[in-house]
Every structure is written in C-alpha cells, then in structure tokens.
C-alpha cells in the first residue's frame, strides 16, 4: 500500500531521472545546466525525505546557489557555444559501459546493504534539526577533518583563482 511518503518519493525520483536524462542528452548546453537545477532540487527533496534537513538545505545552497551559477557562467564565458555543436560523440563504448555498470552495481549493493531510515517517528527527531548533531560532531569526533576542511577550502580557492585568473591585460587608455 502506497502512502503519501511513497508518492512524494516517486515524484522526486521521476524528477531526478527525467531531468538527468535531459542533462545528458540535451544538445543545448544551457538546457542541460537548467535541467541540472531540477536534478539538484530533487536530490534535496530526497534528503528531506530522509530527515536530513541540514543536508537538504546545503544541497540547495551550495549546488543550486553556487555550483550551478558557476556552470552557467562557464557556459556563457565560452564564446558562441550555442551555435557550435558540442555534442560528444560515442567513443570507447565498451569501457564506458563497463565502468558505468560497475558503478551502478556498487550503488545497488550499497542500497541493498544500507540500513535505511524510513520515516521520522520520535518527536525529538521531528523537532530538532540535525545541524545540532553535526555541530557536536564537528568539535568532538571529527575535529581534525573539520580543520582540514578549511585547509582544503583554502587550497581550492587559491588554486581555482590562479587557474581562472586572466593574464594581465595591457592598460587601455
């Protein structure tokens, strides 16, 4: 018997699958980027269904609000990309499908093994945000990874900026 949660789950699943097909098969790269918006959105919906509220919002803020904007800028940065057909041809079909099958199998295995947490039942879980637990984890168990994360972010920022930096343009009068 399907209940409301199941319907919502299938709704998001359809959104994710449909939009990711558009992402992969659309010839227009901006359409792909746009469809990715819905994919991210659907994934955020999944997080909510798993009661991972903080993760869901993080997904929206970082991926939808940041990475996708970056992608759109990247697309617009590339001149005339709309007219040039940048459809990737099919090559190396065999290794690609092998790897894809391998990853799919791995994911299915994880799905099967995982202890899925279904519907929040305790009032404590319903009222508290997972962010508090995450905060405690940051200063106890995962304190080193937390600080290392800041170093990673530092390296990412400096590296990205160096790569993306334009050569000094000649002074224009």
């Amino acid at each position, binding site marked *: 018997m399907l209940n409301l*949660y199941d319907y*919502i789950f299938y709704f998001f699943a359809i959104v994710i699958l449909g939009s990711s097909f558009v992402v992969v098969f659309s010839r227009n790269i901006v359409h792909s980027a746009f469809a990715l918006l819905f994919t991210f959105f659907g994934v955020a*919906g999944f997080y*909510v*269904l798993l*009661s991972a*509220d*903080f993760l*869901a919002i*993080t997904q929206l*803020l*970082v991926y939808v*609000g*940041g*990475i996708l*904007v*970056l992608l759109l*800028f*990247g697309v*617009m*940065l*590339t*001149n*005339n*990309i*709309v*007219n040039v057909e940048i459809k990737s041809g099919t090559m190396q079909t065999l290794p690609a499908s092998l790897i894809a099958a391998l990853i799919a199998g791995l994911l299915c295995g994880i799905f099967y093994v995982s202890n899925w947490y279904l*519907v*929040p039942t305790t009032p404590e*879980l*319903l*009222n508290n*945000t997972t*962010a*508090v637990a*995450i*905060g*405690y984890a*940051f*200063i106890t168990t995962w*304190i080193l990874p*937390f*600080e290392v*994360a*800041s*170093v990673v*972010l*530092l390296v*990412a*920022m*400096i590296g*990205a*900026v160096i790569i*993306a*930096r*334009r050569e000094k343009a000649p*002074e*224009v*009068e």
Partner: protein
Amino acid sequence: MLTDFGRIFIFFIVGAIFTAGGLMTSWLFRPKRYYPQKLSTYECGEEPIGDSRVKINVRFYVVALIFVVFEVEVLFIFPWALIFQKVGMFAYLEMLFFLLILIVGYAYVWAKGDLDWDKPIPVIPQLSKLLNNKS
C-alpha cells in the same frame, strides 16, 4: 519536520499554478498580431550586430569561484553556531582557527587583485591640453 518542508513545497505548487493561470488568462485575452519587425531583437532601433550571447568577462567566473568556497565555509559555521553557547571557549578557539586559515586565502585573493573589478579609466579632458593641441 517533513510536513513543514511539505508545506513549503505546497506553496511552490500553489504559486506555480497561480502564475501559470495568470499567463493562461492573459493568453486568452491578448491580441496576437505579429510581424517580423515586432519580433526582432530590440537594440535601440539598430540592426543587432553579431550574436547576442557575447563572451562575458572572466571576472564573473572568478567571483563565482570564490563565492562557492566561502559558501561552503559559511555552511560549516552554521552548525557550530548552534552549539556554541553550550561548549564555550573550546568551540570559540576552534572556529577562530578555522576562520584564520580561510582569512589567509581571502587575504591572498584580495592582495592579488582578484576581487578588484575592472574599472573604467576615464580620460578627463583638460582645458590646457586642448588649448595646446589647438595652437
């Protein structure tokens, strides 16, 4: 929690139905008399030159890159802020250290001029120069 997020979702749906309804209603009433001149791209009466999807300044991309890094950082701070009062000094020092490392990056980006936007360099006409040229 689920129901609350669900309500936001319902709001999305109601809002989408409402706006789509507005567009539909307008579609029923509005005139549809098109001709090529009306459908041409507006460029202050001139014929548009070249493709309008012009190549953008790389600055936009750099800004977005820095933004993503900082956004992740801000999201790291949120859970910390929620437990700060209960933990106290230790949490404060930890976050200070976390921020310090990132401020190094921020200072680097600032010093290297990646945060500077391209500024127009106006050539201010000077009367004396103009007079000199004339004579």
